[in-house]
């Protein structure tokens, strides 16, 4: 089962399918850091990631069916 990725706002330009939301086959034993590399989001792009609704570090192993939300951190109300 692939992971579900949602690239929000201007980060959507890094979508491999051209759509904000897409499924992604990362393969076994892959970390969040590896996902970000494969999506080729530049290191100096400020972004935050929620995996299943939680902030996790990039060493976290991703599992089948995980929900990954990548967004530009913005203040608001």
């Amino acid at each position, binding site marked *: 089962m692939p992971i579900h990725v949602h690239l929000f706002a201007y980060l959507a330009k890094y979508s491999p399918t051209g759509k904000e939301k897409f499924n992604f086959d990362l393969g076994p034993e892959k970390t969040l850091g590896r996902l970000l590399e494969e999506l080729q989001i530049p290191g100096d792009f400020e972004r935050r990631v929620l995996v299943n*609704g939680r902030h996790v570090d990039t060493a976290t192993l991703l599992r089948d069916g995980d929900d990954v*939300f990548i967004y530009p951190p*913005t*203040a*608001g109300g």
Partner: protein
Amino acid sequence: MYGWRGKILRVDLSSGKIKEENLDPKVARDYIGGRGLGVHYLLKEGDPTCDPLSPENMMVMAAGPLTGTSAPTAARYMVITKGPLTGAVTCSNSGGQFPKELKWAGLDAIIFTGKAKEPVYLWIDQGKAELRPAKHLWGKWVPETTDTLLKETDPKARVACIGPAGEKLVLFAAIMNEKDRAAGRSGVGAVMGSKNLKAVVVRGKDAVPIANKDRFTEINNGVLNKFREGVKKIGPSPLSQHGTIGVMTPLVQKFGVFPTKNWQQGQFEGWEAITGQTLTQKYLVKTRACWACPVACARVTKVEEPGYEGEGEGPEFETGFALGALCMVDNLAAITKANYLCNELGLDTISMGGTIACAMELYQRGYLTDKQAGGPVKWGDGKRLVELTRLTGLREGFGNDLALGSYRLAEKYGHPELAMVSKKLEMPGYDPRGLQGQGLNYATSPIGASHCRGHMAYPEMVGIPKPIDPHETKGKGKLVKLWHEVFSIIDSTGLCIFFAARNLVRPELEIYPDGILEYVNAVTGAEYSLDELMKAGERILNAERVFLVRAGFSRKDDSLPPRLTGEPHTSGPSAGKVVHLEEMKDEYYRERGWDENGIPTDKKLKELGLK
């Protein structure tokens, strides 16, 4: 003086007398302006034990020293009074253009006392101020009131007014400026209504003087260029593209902290129908900015769906939450129409949604009948949502009960525990069961539950300046204390928290206001040190607390509803958690130098010059 205009207007509505007074430079320095200035006068001269709807209640409109300059987002003013909904001190914030106009008319603040015998409005034309009859405006909705006043005074003037809701003393009535900007919370609109004060109209042509123009230009260029380069390099801010409703809705949903069904759930199935992106696709006409704001998060919208036709500004995130998820309404046209009605009648959208949701739960549980409510009050009924909003603003039918706010409504129908409030103020759209620090913030915020007095969802959920453990309680007392002070400084300078708390503070959890300090010193020439500015923030929080104590508040009132401290969600990313409030309050009071009952010690008050 620079930044500050050095002038206060005193308007005694009982006698009809208007007096100009010089702003004491020491008071200006110690309390900064805006919120701080307001609480200074309220504490010194107001009556914390008065009935908020009596002539004895004082109401202050105050702008900050930066308001009306071209510092980015320097567009804000505050209304400070004893809130009718809460009985607590309140400071209600609004932007748009009216605050800048006040400063350009040469004023820092207006202090209203007493009650006019008949409806009046205050017209300030540059230096000249007069009270004019407003009987012909009484009963008019906000848009017609505004248009009529602009014809009677100056088409370039700015209007802050109440609609029928404020006139009829709806406990969460708002003061609306530029028709769609709201000083929304705690019922400040009802205070105006109780004083027979329909509007304040102001025309100002005199730019705010700057002490060190070169330094100001240098700082300003730096900040604005950084912002614009960011836009050029990576893209427009999501806040500009899709509004606060765009930025926050997906996050609260994913985090499981989207208050839904009167806080019975932490996620909303219909969330995608009510995001900012959906609003952009369906109803957005254009964006709009407050004075001096490069972001433009306001949504100018138009709905053409039959039954929901209208136009205006909004909805914002809080409105999408309160009139949407909280009531299980996923019809964005209905939410937007209810939002327009709130603006036109002059109502706070958070309290409106919180009160309707409370009514929906009372109905769900059989504590409120069809007969009592004039019909069903079912979850998800967008048509009924719109109707109930209109009835509330006009205090007709069941709207007369809703006009009491959720706490008094729930109390009337026998179940006050179903009101999702702190200090009787309906909670904003972030569930503290998934965000411990936000829970502490809601409970200890001086005005009642407010995200705008120290937004813990920024580090705990959004991850700015960086993510912290939202479920940890240790350390949150200390952090919330600091954030409360920095936000009080922002509120007192006249900046917008959404910009300043992100771009003009140290990029650390301890968000010391380095950038704000630079602006304040360049504009006013006051040469604050960082310590002095932080002390002013601490002074303001303590002054507010002294008012609260005198009004009868203490630790027991720094509370959250039993649902949040005792009923965990059973599903979603924030499942299984409740708010551990008391231990966080212990830490917060310790850091504040208050006793275990939340009362400032004499030592602390002396230190801040409050004793």
